[in-house]
């Protein structure tokens, strides 16, 4: 092996990597928030909705969970314009990530909702809470608390998966790496640095999630 690793071209373009990382963060947090909303709606539909709604949600979950994300994003970015639905690369990336994480999160949140005992909901009704209040305070919040670890590891996986959006020329961290490597040919060095950056992001996310847990769910479970 007579190859000299040369990180100079990577460091010279580091600001490009940072702006890519910003897009990765935007996509991840955007998809997390939107995906959670999608998941709560779908989980509510699956646990309490009429039969056709349950079928639709089931079909959505099974299709997304049994096809690769790469194909999903190709379908959304290249396939949907045939139906007149056209997105810019970054929007298509956000849509694809949201649709993807929404399916996984639905199953997770559904498990949480099913763990809420019926008596809790009845107690809420007895206290005169409106159905929306019952759903929000008595069903969703404790359900999210129960499934929080599973949900957040799914979110970290989402952030890592988001590297795939670079294939439709979105401008995320992996795409910034592709740009730099095609200009400098320092492929290995570029991807080594980027892999390290993803690792740092994954560790930072898991730290952030435990802070959020303390802030949002730090109340005693029962007396």
């Amino acid at each position, binding site marked *: *092996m007579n*190859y000299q690793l040369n990180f100079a071209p990577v460091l010279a373009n580091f600001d490009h990597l940072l702006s890519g990382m910003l897009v990765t963060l935007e996509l991840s947090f955007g998809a997390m928030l939107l995906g959670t909303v999608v998941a709560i709606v779908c989980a509510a539909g699956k646990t309490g909705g009429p039969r056709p709604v349950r079928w639709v949600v089931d079909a959505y979950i*099974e*299709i997304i*969970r*049994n*096809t*690769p*994300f*790469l*194909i*999903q994003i*190709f*379908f959304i970015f*290249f*396939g*949907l*314009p*045939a*139906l007149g639905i056209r997105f810019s690369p970054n929007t298509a990336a956000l849509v694809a990530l949201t649709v993807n994480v929404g399916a996984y999160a639905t199953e997770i949140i559904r498990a949480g909702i099913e763990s809420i005992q019926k008596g809790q909901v009845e107690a809420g009704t007895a206290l005169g809470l409106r159905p929306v209040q019952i759903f929000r305070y008595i069903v969703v919040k404790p359900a999210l608390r129960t499934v929080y670890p599973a949900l957040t590891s799914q979110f*970290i996986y989402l952030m*890592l*998966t988001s*590297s*795939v959006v*670079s*294939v439709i020329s979105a401008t995320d961290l*992996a795409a910034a790496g592709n740009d730099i490597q095609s200009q400098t040919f320092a*492929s*290995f060095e570029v*991807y*080594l640095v*980027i*892999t390290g950056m*993803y*690792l740092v992001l*994954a*560790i930072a996310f898991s730290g952030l999630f435990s802070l959020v847990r303390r802030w949002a769910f730090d109340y005693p479970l029962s007396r």
Partner: protein
Amino acid sequence: MIRPFGINEALFIVEAIRWTLALSAVAFAGGAIGGLIVALCRVSSVAPLRYLALGYIRLFQGTPLLMQLFLVYFGLNIFGAGINPWLAASLALTLHASAFLGEIWRGCIEAVPSGQSEAAWALGLGYVDRMKSIVLPQAAKIAVAPTVGFLVQLIKGTSLASIIGFVELTRAGQIINNATFVPFKVFGLVAILYFVLCWPLSLVARWTERRFAVATQR
């Protein structure tokens, strides 16, 4: 000249399934061997082995599969193995699968009650006999459902090999799409084919999980 999307184009995509299956099989076989080693290190009584295995798992679970593929692909070139998508894809997916299966199987090994291990010690069985005849067979029973679940994830993961130029199902779809320009049909077909591969496995995983849950409740 745009080609029409006919039966030959569809067959080209369908036939590419074998490469997706071949790559999945290689990665799964390699990952099973690697995963067993990682899992055994992870529950080892030797602390450095435990930390090494933990670091390996964290590294591969904390970075994108796409980056792992790129690093192996370009790394092999640096080490003089040349540009070889087959080798790079199977090696990267094997390393990836080893980490995930290692972590899954660690959980399964730890779920075997420690009394089983202690009884084996008391009977004077050595490490190899204890693992081979007592612990691993019991862990294997628990491991079926999550392992099949991971196999689905691995099959989906092989689609990323298309990005480094390995011609499997996804890449075949891209090639046909570039010639016919009917992405809705092409990627729809590719998605259906992946679904046909993965869905039965998902059902098997769910079924074994439920059967196991019933078995342990008794």
